[in-house]
């Protein structure tokens, strides 16, 4: 018994350490966005929103933020269309070799180190004579987030009974009607969930982007440039804002996930009450 309690205690300590190491650095940045530091200590008397004010005047960052949003939305939409087609294809032909190999291909950019995805697209675009810019970044991000969306959609489709589509056809629905009334409603939540997740991934993506970026930088690339040059306190303010955004995104995702998980029927039943 005593030994077990000791074990519990050590587990709790490790967990505390893990969470601390995840949050402390971020918290520090957050604090430093309002206060300044002197001789290794936070000077609590120096509260100011000055860095935030300065941040909002920084046009380069504003542009980068817009670019990030644009890239994220475009990449997610492109990936969603392809992932939906691929997932339906894989689900409708479970024993097809072609669909199986396609799955491996879809997973490659996600599983390989981002540096490889990035530089392979860089070389490809250069050889094809396509200049680097937002479109190349969008392609890079779409390819990167594709696997996540595909996986989530396919899981949902596989959980559905195969005979639903048969039943719809049997009752007189055309292919289009079957897609619209049967498949799409069942994919709505997984599309939302995977869309948010993919957007979050795209919003943070840096390593692939660094290879594909032209003159228009995304937010992380802009940040990278700023951090490399040196310590600018307004970064802290920006980081605090992004932190807030991440939290909102995660909570939204957790909520969507909660509604999405479990068997579809039960869930619909639960939420409809």
């Amino acid at each position, binding site marked *: 018994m005593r030994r077990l309690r000791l074990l519990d205690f050590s587990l709790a300590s490790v967990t505390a350490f893990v969470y601390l190491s995840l949050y402390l650095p971020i918290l520090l940045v957050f604090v430093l966005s309002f206060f300044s530091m002197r001789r290794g200590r936070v000077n609590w008397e120096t509260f100011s929103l000055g860095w935030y004010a300065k941040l909002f005047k920084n046009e380069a960052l504003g542009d980068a933020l817009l670019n990030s949003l644009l890239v994220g939305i475009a990449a997610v939409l492109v990936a969603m269309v392809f992932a939906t087609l691929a997932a339906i294809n894989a689900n409708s032909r479970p024993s097809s070799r072609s669909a199986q190999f396609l799955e491996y291909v879809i997973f490659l950019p996600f599983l390989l180190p981002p540096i490889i995805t990035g530089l392979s697209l860089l070389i490809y675009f250069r050889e094809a004579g396509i200049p680097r810019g937002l479109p190349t970044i969008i392609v890079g991000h779409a390819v990167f987030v594709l696997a996540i969306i595909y996986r989530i959609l396919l899981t949902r489709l596989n959980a*559905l*009974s195969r*005979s*639903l589509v*048969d*039943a*719809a*056809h*049997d*009752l*007189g*629905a*055309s292919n289009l*009607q079957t897609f619209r*009334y*049967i498949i799409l*409603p*069942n994919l709505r939540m997984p599309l939302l969930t995977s869309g948010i997740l993919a957007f979050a991934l795209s919003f943070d993506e840096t390593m692939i982007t660094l290879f594909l970026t032209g003159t228009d930088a995304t937010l992380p690339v802009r940040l990278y440039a700023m951090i490399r040059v040196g310590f600018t306190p307004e970064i802290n303010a920006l980081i605090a804002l992004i932190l807030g955004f991440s939290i909102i995104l995660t909570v939204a995702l957790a909520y969507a996930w909660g509604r999405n998980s479990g*068997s*579809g*029927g*039960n869930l*619909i*039943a639960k939420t*409809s009450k």
Partner: protein
Amino acid sequence: MANPETGSPAAADVGLPLLRIRGLGARFGTVEAIKPLDLDVNDGEFLTILGPSGSGKTTLLRTIAGFQPPSAGRIEFDGKDIADLPINRRPFNTVFQDYALFPHMTVRENVGFGLRVRGTAKAQLNDRVDAALGIVGLEEFDARYPSQLSGGQQQRTALARAMICEPRLILLDEPLAALDAALRRQMQNFLKTLQRQSGITFLFVTHDQSEAITMSDRICVMRSGSIEQIGTPRELYYRPKSRFVAAFFGASNIVEPCRIHETRDDATIVETPVGQFRISGPPPDSSSGLALAIRPEALGPEDETRVNTLELEVVAVSFVGSETITELRHRRTSQVFTMKTRSDPAARPPDIGSILNIGFDPAECALVTEAAN
């Protein structure tokens, strides 16, 4: 409508069958799931496809419904070839084994789906859904989702959904398989009544012979992709043509080899290793692997109707409630027989090893062949 006395479908003599299948075959790669077969389904009848697992029942039904492309043959509905008709244009509907209810739609939306995709006006759609829900007794449940229904209610939703477009034929693939025994019996009655009242032709798949017997006007027995025998439940029960059908309907005492000794007007005399017997009716057309099939309940103490007799030794007696099952053995040939008799509270069970004079009625046995065709 069917005549319950003889079990023969009244519509049979109208002429043209509702569904006419000729030379229909289906294959998965090299596996021939259905060997080319003919089948007529008459208007208004309850036809059951019965067969053991893997005999091709589902494949046959799916081929008719259009989910599965046929490898050969033609399917005519109401005199028109429907082979090239896509599923959503076929004039009949299916009740799936797992019901295939749309999980994201309410009962009302599920039932109304067939009308919705046909662009039926809202008011008319609602009226017809109400009527269909009334028939299956689900008026109260129209706002529920499938996951909030019991098995029987889901089953009835699936039925209402298949009926909404007023098809003349409904295909049902083991629709009762997922239900427990009590509910199953209840749904059997419900289905049968519904079928009679609506006049819709039912093509029903099951592997349960008692279910087939109680529900059907005619039964089509399938075996490894071919039709073994088609007939009324009575015909299959009392006049199986093959050993397979006999065994499937519980005629477990098979005596072989059989040789036809004499053919009279109303009877056939056969020679078997355990004696010479008289069988009602003419002999089968083919005589390959001829055998005599006797139902366990046809055996009993020798009397004036059980005129075919044989002396058998008692091997074992087991009391199973209303019935008593006696294992018997023919001394010389060691052929084993099973006898099922009504339990008699007054009678003492026979001693093991004693010899009994057992007889059976010439009308309660059948001459069967290796295969029906």
